[in-house]
């Protein structure tokens, strides 16, 4: 076992983790621990853009951005946080630019902006150009720029180290983490004054997803296991345009640049569902609309997909502004977006919920927002909550940089003002036990089989449409899978780069996330944003304008609620 001591440890080297690391570098001793090489993080897959009301190409104001965020999130957004997001987005983008981010430019040399779903001018009047971008590899460029900045500032990286456990004292102070060096299988204990969880999302609980195979909700699940409640887990976003069957994302930028959706009859069906914003309505609405078309028998050839049509766009726009998308379509479908319609289907995309935090990234433990000293979270694994019940496109990347930055800055202060807390006696015992258990277990179940059944069940019963019965059936299935999980067996007993062991551990995390989603979704008897209950199709502000918190206690899963912060915008009906 190896011990390390750092003022601050950041788990996860995606946009959120690296942004925080860049803030901390030079101010204290900071380490970034990541199970992937930083540049492999899923932030690199983000395509379309990052929102900020720069007003470079047309009039725009942060308060419009804030309004869109709140409305897009179906008013479940904490408005104090949304205000921070919209205001600081501008600074954060400029900072990224100064660090070298290669934005596309306007003819006069400023950052260019494009349209994106749900972003409007003057509180909903019509689409606005707010998304800053670098072709269709905005996330890639953010990840690169932040990694480069972290290298420049000489941050210490522990690449391919997988966090297994979070160290909390009995009186609720965070003292570090335990991780496994994937290459050697050695256990490392990181003693720290402050820990930031930035481990990303858990799209892999669903069968068809845009998320990476590594997006298994590790940080979320570990926090959950250590008694930290999770917030708003029932809100999981399905992105309307995933490549049929594969789930590979075709960015909303396709529609931002003018692409349209057509059903099997060739109709532009969004006219029926969102007369003003049409194809650029928020994702939850478009995804539901697609399924409604399919249910009404207007899918293509009676199958469960519709078309994304870019053929009317100039070939040059497609090639230069959407080069990666073009490449995906050519590589994986053998089609040419310039001439062919693209078969698409909603794909599991983004977790609005996660580890609850305040606007400084501090993880909070209860409905009163009491922070845990030394523990922070940011990025997709956290829930600030700026996305409420449904995130707008381009708002996640802003979330990463704005709240990654705030968390980093707060941590810098925190480590200056606080001392190390002693580690518990055998800090790694839980992590060791987990590894030993999986390695030695002599069951009959295959990890992949359980995972496949989990993903299938989640897709059917916790997908775009949900019902009380379906969710109960899902919970039963999850119970069964949980049991079978104790009967797994892995072939690979070696220590060196044991990916099978990792996948088994990750399956445990996925099960945790799935259970939290199912229970939270079953309890919420209304439809709001991405959570659509067919048995309760209306939004119910009187009873449900509140955040779900779910905690794992000795008595099982426990649900409780906390109020939504409303400052500027009273909840209204959401039409586009």
């Amino acid at each position, binding site marked *: 076992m190896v011990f390390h001591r750092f003022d601050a440890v950041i788990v996860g080297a995606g946009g959120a983790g690296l942004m925080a690391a860049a803030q901390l570098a030079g101010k204290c001793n900071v380490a970034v621990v990541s199970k992937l090489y930083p540049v492999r993080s899923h932030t690199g897959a983000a395509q379309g853009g990052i929102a900020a009301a720069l007003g470079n190409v047309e009039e725009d104001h942060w308060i419009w951005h804030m309004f869109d965020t709140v409305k897009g999130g179906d008013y479940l957004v904490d408005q104090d946080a949304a205000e921070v997001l919209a205001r600081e987005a501008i600074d954060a983008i400029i900072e990224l630019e100064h660090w070298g981010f290669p934005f596309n430019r306007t003819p006069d040399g400023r950052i260019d902006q494009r349209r994106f779903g749900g972003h409007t001018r003057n509180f909903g009047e019509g689409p606005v150009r707010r998304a800053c971008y670098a072709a269709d590899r905005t996330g890639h460029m953010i990840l690169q720029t932040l990694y480069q900045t972290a290298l420049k500032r*000489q*941050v*210490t*990286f*522990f*690449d391919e180290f997988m966090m297994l456990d979070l160290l909390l004292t009995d009186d609720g102070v965070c003292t570090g983490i335990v991780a496994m*060096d994937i*290459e*050697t299988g050695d256990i490392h204990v990181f003693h720290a004054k402050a820990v930031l969880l930035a481990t990303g999302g858990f799209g892999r609980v669903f069968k068809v997803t845009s998320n990476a195979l590594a997006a298994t909700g590790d940080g979320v699940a570990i926090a959950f296991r250590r008694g930290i409640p999770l917030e708003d887990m029932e809100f999981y976003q399905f992105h309307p345009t995933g490549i049929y069957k594969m789930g590979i994302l075709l960015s909303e930028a396709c529609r931002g640049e003018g692409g349209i959706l057509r059903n099997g009859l060739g109709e532009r069906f969004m006219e029926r569902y969102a007369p003003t914003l049409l194809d650029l309505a928020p994702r939850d609405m478009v995804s539901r609309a697609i399924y409604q078309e399919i249910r009404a028998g207007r899918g293509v050839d009676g199958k469960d997909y519709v078309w994304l049509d870019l053929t009317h766009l100039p070939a040059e726009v497609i090639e230069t502004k959407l080069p990666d998308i073009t490449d995906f379509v050519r590589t994986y479908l053998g089609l040419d977006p310039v001439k062919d319609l693209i078969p698409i289907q909603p794909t599991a995309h983004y977790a609005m919920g996660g580890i609850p935090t305040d606007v400084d990234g501090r993880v909070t433990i209860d409905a009163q927002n009491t922070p845990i000293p030394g523990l922070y979270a940011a990025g997709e694994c956290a829930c600030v909550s700026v996305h409420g019940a449904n995130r707008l496109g381009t708002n996640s990347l802003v979330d990463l940089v704005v709240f990654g930055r705030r968390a980093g800055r707060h941590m810098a202060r925190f480590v200056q003002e606080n001392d190390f807390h002693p580690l518990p006696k055998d800090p790694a015992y839980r992590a060791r036990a987990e590894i030993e258990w999986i390695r030695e277990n002599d069951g009959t179940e295959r990890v992949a089989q359980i995972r496949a059944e989990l993903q299938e069940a989640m897709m059917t019963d916790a997908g775009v449409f949900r019902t009380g019965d379906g969710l109960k059936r899902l919970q039963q299935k999850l119970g069964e899978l949980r049991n079978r999980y104790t009967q797994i067996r892995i072939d690979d007993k070696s220590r*060196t780069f044991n990916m099978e062991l990792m996948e088994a551990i990750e399956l445990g995390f996925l099960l945790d996330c799935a259970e939290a989603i199912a229970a939270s979704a079953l309890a919420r008897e209304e439809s709001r944003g991405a959570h659509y209950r067919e048995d309760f199709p209306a939004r119910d502000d009187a009873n449900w304008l509140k955040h779900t918190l779910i905690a794992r206690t000795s008595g099982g899963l426990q649900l409780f609620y906390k109020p939504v912060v409303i400052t500027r915008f009273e909840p209204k009906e959401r039409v586009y």
Partner: protein
Amino acid sequence: MTVTRAQESRSATTRGISAYRGYRPPPGMISWAFHRITGLGVLLFLLLHIVDIFLVNYGPEVFNELLFLYRHPVFRIGEIILVGAVYYHAANGVRIMLIDFWPAAYRYERQLFYGVMAVFLLAFIPTAFLMIRAIIQAG
């Protein structure tokens, strides 16, 4: 700063010349391999040639004695290869220089490679024909 681990004691690498076998060569790799082989081959001949030329200073007897070697059939085949090597190396050298100094040339990398092969063959086939004929005539 990145933390690195001590090298594993037991490990496998594919470094060194043996790696050549592991890669299915694209045209560029073939053209480079020929360029290097021909360059080094011609160099070897050149070194030999300097030695024999040095012998002109020892008078016709010594020098002409040596010519028997050059007139040996095996050597004459080698001579054909030498000429071919110089042709190829020269043509490919031009291709490399085009790529270096003509910014748009990289787009025609394949075409240039085939062009080199064409120039090489066009020059080499008649040359080889003449040289073989000379060998036969010399008996």
